[in-house]
């Protein structure tokens, strides 16, 4: 079984990180290379600078306006729950930080493993709830494509296998951690080609809308 771990830590991670970097750069750069629209209409006078507007909008959309919040409370709370949960589990666990340190060359302080495990459990439930919501809500059902279910499922997998690995549950540890790493590999490979890319694109589109609204002088 140790061979599986060697495969996961070796070629599997190497190839999937390569595909991830390739895909993300391919998508972002080809997006930034789309032909520019001709914009000559003047901006409203005395509007704030584009940079501030962009950053402001990225922050502002973290919480929807209260008018919409009432109707989207579940999506809002659940969305935050699994996003924060994912951030804690991905960036807070010592083992993960070691991974980033190896790739990036620097690390940071880790959180207690048991706390990360708790966050992982909450994340798992939250992700499953979001998938259940997607299956049952008529609007979401209408909108959903294979990409949505794949993206959701491929996010659930590393969380679930990671929890099993930290809990040493079911199989031998080396098998569990190998499966966990392999599930991350699949996640990384799929990431650039589906809606998981929103992790990067969210900054682009929010800022873009923020700049456009600032240009018009729309204050949300």
């Amino acid at each position, binding site marked *: 079984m140790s061979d599986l771990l060697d495969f996961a830590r070796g070629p599997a991670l190497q190839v999937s990180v390569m595909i991830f970097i390739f895909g993300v750069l391919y998508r972002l750069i080809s997006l930034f290379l789309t032909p520019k629209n001709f914009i*000559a209409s003047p901006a409203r006078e005395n509007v704030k600078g584009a940079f501030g507007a962009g950053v402001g909008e990225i922050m502002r959309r973290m919480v929807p306006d209260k008018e919409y919040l009432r109707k989207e409370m579940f999506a809002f709370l659940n969305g935050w729950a699994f996003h924060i949960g994912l951030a804690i589990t991905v960036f807070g666990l010592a083992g993960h930080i070691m991974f980033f340190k190896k790739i990036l060359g620097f690390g940071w302080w880790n959180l207690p493993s048991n706390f990360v495990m708790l966050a992982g459990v909450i994340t798992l439930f939250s992700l499953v709830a979001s998938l259940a919501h997607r299956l049952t809500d008529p609007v979401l059902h209408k909108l959903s494509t294979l990409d949505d279910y794949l993206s959701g499922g491929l996010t659930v997998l590393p969380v679930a296998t990671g929890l099993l690995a930290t809990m040493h549950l079911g199989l031998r540890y080396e098998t569990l951690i190998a499966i966990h790493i392999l599930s991350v590999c699949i996640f990384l490979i799929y990431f650039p080609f589906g809606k998981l890319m929103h992790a990067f694109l969210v900054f682009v589109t929010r800022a873009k809308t923020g700049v456009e609204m600032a240009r018009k*002088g729309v204050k949300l």
Partner: protein
Amino acid sequence: MENNNPTPKPKDANKAVEKFLVSSASQLAPYLEACIHCGQCAHACHFYEVTQDPKYTPAYKLFPMIKAYRRSKNPLNWLGMIPTLEEDEIAEWQDLVFNGCTMCGRCTNVCPMGIDVAQIVGATRQALTAAGYYPEDLMAAAENVVQHGSPLKVSTSVLEDRLEWIADESETDIPLDKKGAEVMFTISSIELMKYPDSVGAMAKMLNAAGVNWTISTKGYESTNFGYLAGRPDIAKLGTSRLVNAAEELGVKELIIPECGHAYSVLRWNGANIMGRPLGFKVYHITEYLAKLKREGKLKFKSIETAFTYHDPCQISRRGGAADDARYLLEGFAPNFVEMKVTGNQNWCCGGGGGVQAMNKYRDMRINVFKIKAKQVEETGTNTMISACANCRLTMDESIAELKWGGKLDSLVEILADNLIED
């Protein structure tokens, strides 16, 4: 009359795909990649709210363009391996992007990714029109622009007759083609034909403020049905008539009357459509009146009537001029009450984006008005005023149909009625 660019026939899905590819430039491309199908926009859409039918979810309206975009970007497509948009897909969305969307932009406010749905719907309309899928009545209105200079067939002679009559009625001057004018005023044919009082009201206030203004017979129609119908050629025709007329007169400022999309097309896209900066500034009438008020050139008696204000989407949410309407009401209407959901978050009247011109959705518009009626009732007033003739036309239709007890008025009319003239 010659029409260089006849409306496309017969239907050809491929034309839509090509059009999508051409229009997915930097202004739209990031949005087309970003939708996460979270569905939060559904509740922001009045059409979804009144029908509870998931197909009206704004994100769903983006599907054909996103599909075409993805396919055009997919390397496999260059090898001809990815099938293109199907005719029946395009037909299905014709109803959604023309009738089922007023391009009010409310969904953008709730979108966690900040996707500008309205802009994409605008581009989708162009693509579907290019492919021969469009509502006949909206297209007929757009073609009237080519033939008669206006969607409501307000030709130059009709214009002259109406303006003369309005000037008489409201006892004010309406200068036509006045040489040396500094400001060009435009009209919306909806006002001219259905709400002539508001044209008179605006003329009265401009005269009272001592503005040196005129209307041009060469470019007077501020509405742009070419834009609404997805006909960039007609949209450019409409815009260039206004621009050429204004530049010929040598004016420094151009005023858009109480019309929503007219403002957003010329103010925010005019130069882009023309492909060059314009030689004058564009104002909405509320912006211009606010400017005059700020300069102390206009004074109003204050009124006791309690009322609320309906923000036209294209002026406030998509125009950025929400504050000017409030500034005009400051000191003038002490009993003015805001709706609970107002300003840039306001609910659409249900007839924007040319939906008003399409008969098929009359019942839908009337249902949408129920949201508005409830909003007004919650303020405790029974009057609302607006600054868009299209909003008025849409809501007046519903008020009559529902025999609603409240009233709908025009901002400029109320202001003009209480103008302090020296």
